[in-house]
């Protein structure tokens, strides 16, 4: 197989700095050597490749934008985006692991935690010695998390937590869960540790998507959470949404990796597969498909770089993140489907990455705010009318 060289039709590399490119190349090398050779088997077996965790920690993939004093790389957001892009070229499940650890666990501890919480958790999470998960979604509250019923009651020395979360990435393998629950009617964040009494996290089985990622239910049955484990600096649901905004940003970049993997696979296949007298790449209908792919990849790439630059200047609006997440996930799914068509019957085999990406992207389109919810968020922003309450 040819080594993947990236897709860059508009010389988008000229918009990146030398170190941003180095970050991308290093992660690309990592993905080629460590993820791609093992991912299909893990996916088939529905297993998260745990052995990657120390390796990912060693190259610094966890919390890579956070300060060096916690053992992190203090990179900018464009470099972080390039990391998620390369990881998702490997697999959305692996990228999800890194997104959750970084944007949904380390980020909230960093942004809303006490100094003691930061000093204790962040270095361990950066080293991959501890794994985290983020519990917001509930069985009856997905797009509408403000309705959540998980709640905390104040008792001597801490809180009593009751309720359940669902669809939680890394739940079963996590050492610490960032759990959002209502206390006196206001959403608060709590650090629930794996061995707290009354806490369990059974794995959700039967997934046809994100099979190389662990998804779980979190159950809280009178779980005592000590005072030292409440995140002191949160301010309601807004804080949870700030985390999602971080993660969505990574997704907007990540899915471009899936797009590239599908395009690369389809392009190579189309050039070598002959039907009738010619390679199928020589037929106009196939060219139309390939041109669609490269066009959407190029647009998404340029969108992401500008989004990242705005984020690095602290000027990004959450609606801009919504637009990029919504567009890029949708286009990635379309690209995966078109790539599958080009590969014909081979497209359904796990010898090629296309069907796996396609199935993964169904989750990616739904989590971190569904396509429809981002439409409504943007709709409200441009019209001034909220179509949801």
């Amino acid at each position, binding site marked *: 197989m040819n080594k993947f060289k990236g897709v860059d039709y508009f010389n988008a590399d000229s918009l990146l700095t030398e*170190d941003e490119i*180095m*970050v991308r190349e*290093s992660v690309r090398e*990592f993905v080629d050597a460590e993820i791609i050779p093992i991912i299909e088997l893990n996916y088939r077996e529905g297993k998260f490749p745990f052995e990657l965790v120390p390796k990912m920690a060693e190259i*610094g993939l966890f919390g890579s934008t956070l300060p*060096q004093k916690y053992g992190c*790389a203090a*990179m900018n957001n464009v*470099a972080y985006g390039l990391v998620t892009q390369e990881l998702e070229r490997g697999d959305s499940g692996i990228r999800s692991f890194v997104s959750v650890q970084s944007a949904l666990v380390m980020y909230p501890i960093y942004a809303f935690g006490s100094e003691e919480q930061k000093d204790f958790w962040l270095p361990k999470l950066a080293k991959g010695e501890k794994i985290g998960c983020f519990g917001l979604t509930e069985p009856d509250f997905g797009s509408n998390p403000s309705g959540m019923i998980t709640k905390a009651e104040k008792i001597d020395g801490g809180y009593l937590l009751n309720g359940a979360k669902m669809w939680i990435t890394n739940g079963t393998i996590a050492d610490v869960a960032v759990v959002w629950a209502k206390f006196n009617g206001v959403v608060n964040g709590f650090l629930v540790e794996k061995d707290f009494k009354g806490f369990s996290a059974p794995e959700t089985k039967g997934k046809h998507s994100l099979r190389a990622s662990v998804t779980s239910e979190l159950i809280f049955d009178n779980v005592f959470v000590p005072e030292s484990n409440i995140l002191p600096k949160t301010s309601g649901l807004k804080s949870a949404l700030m985390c999602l905004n971080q993660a969505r940003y990574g997704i907007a970049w990540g899915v471009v990796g899936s797009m590239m993997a599908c395009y690369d696979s389809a392009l190579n296949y189309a050039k070598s597969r002959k039907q009738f007298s010619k390679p199928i790449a020589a037929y106009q209908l196939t060219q139309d498909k390939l041109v669609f792919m490269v066009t959407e990849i190029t647009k998404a790439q340029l969108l992401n770089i500008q989004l990242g630059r705005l984020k690095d200047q602290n000027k990004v609006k959450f609606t801009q993140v919504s637009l990029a997440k919504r567009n890029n996930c949708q286009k990635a799914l379309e690209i995966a489907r078109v790539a599958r068509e080009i590969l014909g019957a081979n497209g359904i085999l796990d010898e090629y990455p296309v069907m796996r990406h396609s199935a993964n992207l169904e989750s990616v389109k739904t989590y971190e705010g569904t396509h429809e919810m981002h439409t409504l968020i943007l709709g409200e922003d441009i019209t001034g009318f909220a179509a949801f309450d």
Partner: protein
Amino acid sequence: MKIVVCVSHVPDTATKIKISADEKNIDSAGVSYVINPYDEFAIEEALKTKEKIGGEVYVVTIGNEAAKESLRKALAMGADEAIHLKYDGYLDSLNVAKNLAEEIKSLNSQLVFMGKQSIDFDNCVVPQMTAELLDYNSISVCVSFSLDGNKVTCEREIEGGKEVVESQLPIIVGAQKGLNEPRYASLKGIMAAKKKTIQEKNCTFTNNSVELIKIKKPASKNPGRILGTDVSVVPELVRLLREEAKAI
């Protein structure tokens, strides 16, 4: 102790090579360059040695402006200092060795790692030549390395087996595949490398004793032929092997 690693910046093994118009170089347009793969083993061994015994790792390259990229990568992997001996053109191995020897002498380093060969010109002589010029010991094609005080023990790959050899500092060690697993440039390493400066120096050039005249591509192979997919073609295959290929 200063540990020196010498690296070269070479075309990626996956590139399709085109020869330039003057036939003395390759056309670098569209070619991606990387650290010579054997030099990556050399860097890793230097870093591992530093982690054991302390000191600083100096990485040195001879090459044009673009060669800085390999120095940056070595810095990102964890090297402490980088020295760029600037030269844009063809240097024969002896010229390369003289310049490296000069630099190693001025750094006063007793332990030097290099790749056993550079995959661009494949001369496989620079480690030994440099050692000779410095009057250092040298062991090349090493698949293991250990240092105990002044004593160096290496395993070398030989046809059908390995040999264990001993020598002592000062020494130049030529790295072979299998010596170690080179680390990835970590994100922290890349950010730290950004802050390090690359020292630039000019290369001294004495006339090449081996001059490059021309680069040629190997004769292109005739495409294969499929006679059929079952036993019925065996007689024809035998006939062709005998009469056409004259192989049997």
